[in-house]
């Protein structure tokens, strides 16, 4: 057994090792290319004294050779790493006897897994027969062939690229322009990662959500009042269908968000007003960083605090007043979430208040208004769009918050507006549906992606709206 384990490690490490070695050798080649290119550039003008006759500095010629050596080879390597495992599986499958190829997709996957495990020297589920051994041998052979082939191909391309680049070097060769355009290309690529991420989010969530809506109609999901995603394993069991009406989740999310905002909006706004208008500089210098610490505490810590400290306090306080409070009440989660959001509201409100021209405030004070009157009747109305924008961003934050509700709010999908009862939220359900081993084709798993889609769309709208408010308003006084 121990010996078997040992070989597994080796088999898994071999691929990694091969890859690391290839990359290391490529780097070495690129360095050599750099040196050779720079040297040829020197040689083409007959030594460092005539450097002025070169169009580009020798270093650029060196970089040009290195880039031509490295870039295409790395691209090919990347492509190879992505394509090879799939290609090997396809080839191995084609080599299987007729009977095995007729299996269903799931069984075939199991078979392929067994072949892979056997090839790696790992534990195999089920009988090891001649067919499996054959296939495993084939698999090993193809993998080895792939490794050799990839090394030959990658190094060939690298050397070829370097040599071609090296031959172009000469007095008039504009190496700097070439290098700079490659670098610019890389910069553009880096900046488009942000767009790729958004596309990735939309695509991954949307595709799975569409698969979900094929099984569960959209209207049932959006307007159904009953949420119990437990689908039974056998069709004849009780509750086999599972019901996916998400209204209780939306209501629970709204309830907790409302509680959080009821804490965060007034407290955050008043904090911003006090710190910008009343507080002596020394108080401000202490209080502001302290409140920022509040924003830096990880949400899982808030969750722990809500579940183990705040919830019991609320429960015993409720019992003392004769109220029935669930141990995982919406109130505990909402209150703690509100405190977490205070710094966000206060810093955005602070920005908005600071952006109101001083002349407006001074004018109001000069006409004899008290400071609170100036604030309430002049500054706040002027700052209102910015504050509203900030609150919208805070709402979006509260809706998307996960850890606090996972730890402190319950799993029971109650449709209620009573803050003392347990409710569940969209994010809690996403986590519970996806944690643990899942197949990717059950409605239960796909439902998480449908919820994710709703979450993404709602928070996106709030963010766009909020940012619009904040920005438009800033421009107004600039």
């Amino acid at each position: 057994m121990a010996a078997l384990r040992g070989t597994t490690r080796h088999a898994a490490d071999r691929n990694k090792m091969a890859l690391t070695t290839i990359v290391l050798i490529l780097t070495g080649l690129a360095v050599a290319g750099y040196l050779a290119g720079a040297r040829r550039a020197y040689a083409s003008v007959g030594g460092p004294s005539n450097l002025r006759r070169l169009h580009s500095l020798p270093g650029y010629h060196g970089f040009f050779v290195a880039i031509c050596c490295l870039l295409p080879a790395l691209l090919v390597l990347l492509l190879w790493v992505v394509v090879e495992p799939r290609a090997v599986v396809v080839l191995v499958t084609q080599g299987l006897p007729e009977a095995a190829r007729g299996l269903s997709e799931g069984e075939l996957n199991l078979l392929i897994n067994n072949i892979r495990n056997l090839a790696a020297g790992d534990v195999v589920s089920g009988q090891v027969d001649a067919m499996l051994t054959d296939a495993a041998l084939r698999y090993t052979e193809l993998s080895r062939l792939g490794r050799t082939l990839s090394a030959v191909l990658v190094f060939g391309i690298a050397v070829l690229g370097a040599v071609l680049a090296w031959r172009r070097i000469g007095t008039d060769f504009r190496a700097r322009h070439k290098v700079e355009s490659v670098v610019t290309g890389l910069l553009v690529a880096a900046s488009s990662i942000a767009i790729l991420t958004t596309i990735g989010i939309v695509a991954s969530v949307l595709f799975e959500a569409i698969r979900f809506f094929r099984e569960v109609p959209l209207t049932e999901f959006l307007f159904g009042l009953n949420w119990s995603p437990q689908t039974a394993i056998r069709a004849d069991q009780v509750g086999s269908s599972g019901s996916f009406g998400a209204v209780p989740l939306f209501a629970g999310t709204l309830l907790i968000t409302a509680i959080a905002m009821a804490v965060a909006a007034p407290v955050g706004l008043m904090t911003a007003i006090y710190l910008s208008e009343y507080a002596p500089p020394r108080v401000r210098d202490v209080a502001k960083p302290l409140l920022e610490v509040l924003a830096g505490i990880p949400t899982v810590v808030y969750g722990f605090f809500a579940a183990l400290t705040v919830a019991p306090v609320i429960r015993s306080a409720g019992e003392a007043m004769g109220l029935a409070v669930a141990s995982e009440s919406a109130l505990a989660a909402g209150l703690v979430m509100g405190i977490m959001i205070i710094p966000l509201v206060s810093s955005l409100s602070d920005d908005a208040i600071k952006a109101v021209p001083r002349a407006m405030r001074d004018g109001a004070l000069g006409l004899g208004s008290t400071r609170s009157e100036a604030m309430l009747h002049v500054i706040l109305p002027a700052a209102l769009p910015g504050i509203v924008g900030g609150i919208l961003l805070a709402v979006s934050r509260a809706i998307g918050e996960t850890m606090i509700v996972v730890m402190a709010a319950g799993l029971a999908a109650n449709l209620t507006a009573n803050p003392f009862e347990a409710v569940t939220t969209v994010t809690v359900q996403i986590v519970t549906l996806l944690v643990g081993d899942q197949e990717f084709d059950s409605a239960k798993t796909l439902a998480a992606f449908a919820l994710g889609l709703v979450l993404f769309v709602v928070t996106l709208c709030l963010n766009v709206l909020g940012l619009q408010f904040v920005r438009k308003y800033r421009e107004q006084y600039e």
Partner: protein
Amino acid sequence: MKGAEARKETRRKVEQSLGRRRRKELSFRILGVGATALGVTFLLVFFASLIAQGASAFMQTYVSLDVEFSREHLVPDGEPDLQFGDFDALVRGALRAQFPDVTGRSERRELARLVSVGAAYQLRDALADKPELLGTRLAVFLPASSEVDMLFKGKIDRSLPEEQRRISDLQLEWTDRLVAEGRLERRFNRALFTNGDSREPELAGIRGALMGSFYMLLATILISFPIGTAAAVYLEEFAPRNRWSDLVEVNINNLAAVPSIVFGLLGLAVFINWAAIPRSSPLVGGLVLSLLTLPVIIIASRAAIKAVPPSIREAALGLGASKMQVVSHHVLPLALPGMLTGAIIGMSRALGESAPLLMIGMVAFIVDIPAGFTDPATALPVQIYLWADSPERAFAERTSAAIIVLLGFLLAMNLAAVIMRKRVERQW
């Protein structure tokens, strides 16, 4: 005369309202003080309760017992066998020698539960270190079980009826006898920092989670810092004002506000299911977290680049440098400290993040300490989440301790960022 009359009337009205207005002013001000105080008070209460709960977890109760490394148990067939030697029997024997009056089978079993199951491993390691211990008798400090630990730390209510506490009356009596003999001692809880996760609270440690977080953050910074700074350089220095760069900008601002759990969904669908990167590995965690921190790093880096005065660029351009040379020779070195500050802040956000990691399988119960980017691992915040769910009291204490460690790291990172910003802040 009429004007004077009216003026008087106005004056009277203003004076009349003055008291009310001053009261309003005062109450408004008190509201402001109250709101600010609320946030600060919460912070203080929070830290106080955290330290009150967690400080004791840094200490662990040990029992001093005279252990005989008897050949009978350790040398089953001729030679000392570390793997199959019955070290548990040594612990049981030592306990029996301590309490000779305990005879019944079930009582003896209860007696054995005073000491942690980790005690046998400790004895094995001791023997592996010093083979000459075989056959000798030695006073050893062995870790007590979590129940004895909790009792000794005063976290179990003795007045409760027996069935409502996790420690029986007999065990209570034995513990008291050990205390009376001075055999219980609190020592620094090394297991907390050297062990991986465990089902036994007294053996559970955060080493595995710390290493998981370390590898994940390493992957995150290696991916997100180069890409983030490159994107920032492009957007600040090269991008033409057109639709494309507007689109990129809107995207970055929105990504910064997308709920983190959505990034977890992306990681699950793209990195695990499509690209087949191993589940639960620091690599996939690092990929997800780098997408998450990218907007933070880009925004901070752009601010740093913007702070470099245009005169420097113009001087370099005037001396014949190309645009790329201006950026790489002058702008980047000057903006680098600011970019690094942004990177540290991004990393501290990544360190505290847990929701997306739940999606990509980093919540598994993992005992082994990860040693690379593809080993199954968990992260410190996720470990906190897992422990917070455990019913044992001893885990609540350890959760607080893990939180203190996490907050310590975050504090250190943020302090580093603040100091760095202060030192490089430059008036042009």
